[in-house]
C-alpha cells in the first residue's frame, strides 16, 4: 500500500476513534438541568437520569440522621423538593442560600443529591467554591 494512503488511513482511524470516545462519553455522562416545576410535573420522566437542580435551601429544613447523612428541602419557582444527601456539607452550605444539586430523582419524590455546589453571594472574584466533592467516582 502506498505510504501516503497509509498515513491518511491512520489519520482517519485516529479521528474516528476520538469522535467515538467523545460520543460514547456524552451518552454515559450527560446530566440534565431540570427546574423544580418540570420535575414535579412529570416525575416519572426523570427517574434514573443524571439531573442538576437549582434552588434555595428552605430555612429550618435541615435535619441530620447521622454525622454524614442529611435531609433538607429546597424551594424553586414555588415548588418544594425534598433532598437527601450522604456526605459532608460544603462550608458554604447555608439556609436561604442558593444551591445547585447533582443527583437523581427517586420515585417517592425525594431528590438524592450526590454533589452539592454552592454559589455564595461573595463579592470576591476569582473565588472557586469547590468545597463540595467535585470529583466523586
Amino acid at each position, binding site marked *: 500500500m502506498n505510504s501516503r494512503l497509509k498515513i491518511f488511513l491512520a489519520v482517519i482511524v*485516529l*479521528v474516528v476513534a476520538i469522535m467515538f*470516545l467523545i460520543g460514547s462519553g456524552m451518552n*454515559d*455522562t450527560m446530566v440534565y438541568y431540570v427546574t423544580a416545576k418540570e420535575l414535579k410535573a412529570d416525575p416519572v420522566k426523570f427517574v434514573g437520569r443524571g439531573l442538576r437542580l437549582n434552588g434555595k435551601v428552605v430555612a429550618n429544613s435541615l435535619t441530620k440522621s447521622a454525622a454524614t447523612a442529611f435531609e433538607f428541602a429546597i424551594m424553586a419557582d414555588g415548588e418544594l423538593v425534598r433532598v437527601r444527601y450522604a456526605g459532608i456539607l460544603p*462550608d458554604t452550605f447555608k439556609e436561604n442560600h442558593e444551591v445547585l444539586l447533582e443527583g437523581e430523582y427517586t420515585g417517592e419524590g425525594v431528590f438524592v443529591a450526590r454533589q452539592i455546589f454552592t*454559589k455564595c453571594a461573595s463579592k470576591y472574584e476569582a473565588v*472557586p467554591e469547590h468545597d463540595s466533592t*467535585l470529583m466523586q467516582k
Partner: protein
Amino acid sequence: MPELGNWLLWLASLTTAYSLIILIIGIRRGRDGANLIASGNNAALAAGGLLTLTAGLLFYNLAASNFRVEYVSHYTSRELPLFYKLSAFWGGQQGSLLLWAWLLALFTVAVLLIYQRKNLPTLPYVIAILMAILLFFNTLLLFVAPPFALLAQIPANGAGLNPLLQHPAMAAHPPLLYLGYVGMAVPLAFALGALLSGHLDDTWVKNVRRWTLIPWFFLTMGIMLGARWAYVELGWGGYWAWDPVENASLMPWLTGTAFLHSIMIQEKKSMLKIWNMVLIIVTFELCIFGTFITRSGIISSVHAFAQSGIGPMFGLFLVTTTVFAVWALSRRVAALRASNKMESLVSRESTFLMNNLVLLGATFAVFWGTIFPLISEAVRGVKITVGAPFFNQVNLPIAMALLALTGIGPVLAWRRSSTENLRKQFAGPLVAAGAGVILLWILGVRHLYAFITMLLAIFVTATIVQEFYRGVRARRQSHQENWLAAVWQLLVRNQRRYGGYVVHFGIVLIFVGISGTAFTSHLEATVRAGEAFAIGPYQVQFAQMQFGQDAAKQWMAAEVRVSREGNFLRTLQPEKRLYVTHEQPTTEVALLSTWRDDLYLVLAGYEEEKQAATFSAYVNPLVVWLWIGGWVMALGTLLALVPLAPRSVNVHASKKPRRTPRLAQPREELIATD
C-alpha cells in the same frame, strides 16, 4: 496620587495608538518609512515604560493601603501581610487586566530590544500587531474596568482578601497563567508578521519556537500551581475538577504543545506550514476564549468571577482577531503549500502528525464538554451538561495514546525508519516494558488504565534513558570525557533535544501521579476523642480538639495521631477556621505526603456535647509524583530555553542547515555511536 494613574493610562494608550498608526504608515511607505518605523518602535518602548509606571503606582497604593482607591479597598485590608497586599494586584478584574496589559507591553519591549539591531524585515509587523492587541487592553482599562476608580468616601478599612486566596501558590498562579496567555501573543505576532509581510521563509519559525516555549513554560507552571492550590486549600481531596476555568487554561496548553512539536517538522522538513499557522492562531484565540467564557457568564463555573462588561468585549476581540488572522492566512495559502511530502507512516514526521492530532483531539473533547450546555440549549432547547466523568472517560484513552507517542516519536528516524532502526531503538525499551508487565502484576496493579499508564511510563522512561546513555557513550568515546562531563556536554551541546527529553520525563511522572487516582480511597468517619479509624494502611486517632482565636479568625483544630501499619508517624492538625471578615468557614487540610501516597485529612465538623469529630479522609496514592513531574517539566523547559554556554547556540545554528536526513541513518546526531 491615584489620579496620576488615570493620566498614565491615557498617556500609555495614546502612545500605543501612535505607535500602531505610525508603524502601519511606515510599513506602507516601504523604504522611505524607516524613520517612521523607528519612531513607532520608540513609542512602543515608551508605552512599556508608562505601563510599568502605572503598575508600580497600583502596587504602591496597595502597599500603602490607600483605601480611597476602590480597588485597594475592595481586595485588601490593613491587617493583611504585605505579600498578600501586593498580590491583590491580580485579585480582581481591573488589576488583572492591568497586569495583562503591562506584561504584554514588557513582552513587546523584550522583542524590540532583542531584534531591533538584527534588521528583521518582519519586526515592524510584529510590533504593530502587539500594539494592536495592547490597545485593546488599554481601552478596557480606560473605559470598562478602570483600576484607579476612586471612592467618594474613604472607608476606615478595606474588605480584605478572601482567606482561600491567601496561599503562596495562589499568589503566583494567576500571574503565571497570565504570562502564558499574554505571551502567546508574541508567536501569534510573529506568525501574522510573516503572513502580512510575505516573508514566509523559515526565519519566523526559528524565532517563534523560543517565544512559544516561554509562554508555554508559564502556562505549565500556572496550571500546576493552580492544581496544587486546589489540592491543599479546597479540601475535596483532588486537584483537577474539569471546571470551565481549568479547561480554559488546559486548552491553549494542549494546542501550544501541539504547535511546539509540529513547528519542528516545519523547521526540519518544511512541512505542515499552513497547519502551524492555524495552530498558533488557535492557541492564541483559546487564550482569549478562556477569558471570554469565564468573564461573560455564558458558561457557569464554580469559579465566581465577576461578570461584567468585559465579557462581550472579549467576545468581540475574539471574533475580530480570528477574522483578521484567517484573512491574513488565506492570502498566503498558495505560498505555504508544502514542498516536501510525508514518505512513510513509520517516521518521526508522521508520529508527530499523530501527536498533533491526538493533542487536538483532546482539545476538542475539552472544548466540546465545556461548551456543550450552550450548544444543547441552542439546538435542542434543553440544558444538558457533562462533568468530570465525561472528561475523565474521554481523555484518559487519549492521554495514554499521547504517552505512547512520547516514547515512540522521538526515537524514530526522519522520513522512514528501517527495520534495523526499529530493532535498535525499541529492543531495549520493549524488554523494559516486558519486565514492567511482570513487575506491575507482582505489585498487584489490576486496574486496566493504571496498568497501561504505568507500563507506558516504563517504556517511555526506557527510551529516554537509552537516548541519554547512547549520547553519553558517544561523547565518552570520541572526547575521552568522564561520565559527568559527558552528561553535561551532551546537555549543553544539544539543549533543545535533551531539555525536551527531560520535559518528557516530567510528563511521565505526571502520568504516574495521575494514575494513582485509580487507587484513591475515601471515607468519612465520626470518632470521639481517643477513638481511631483506619483508612488504607493508616490508623488515624483523634486525640483532642483545640480551640483558639486571634484578631483575624477563630479556629478549631483536631489533634490527630497518625500511624502506618502500627508505627506512629506523626501528629496532624486539620483545622476549621472562621475569618472575621468572611462569613463562611474555611478548611485547612492536613497532609501527610510520602512517595507512596498522601494521607489527606479534612476536619468536617465537631459536636461539642458528644465530643465527636467528623473527618473526611483520603488516601491518594502517588500524588507526590505529579508535583515532582511538574518541577521536572519546568527544569526541562528551562534547559531547552536558557543558553547554558554561549557556544551551544552557535554550534546549533551553524550545524543545522548542513544536516541532511539520510535513509537508514537512524540518528543523525549520534553518528559516532552507530
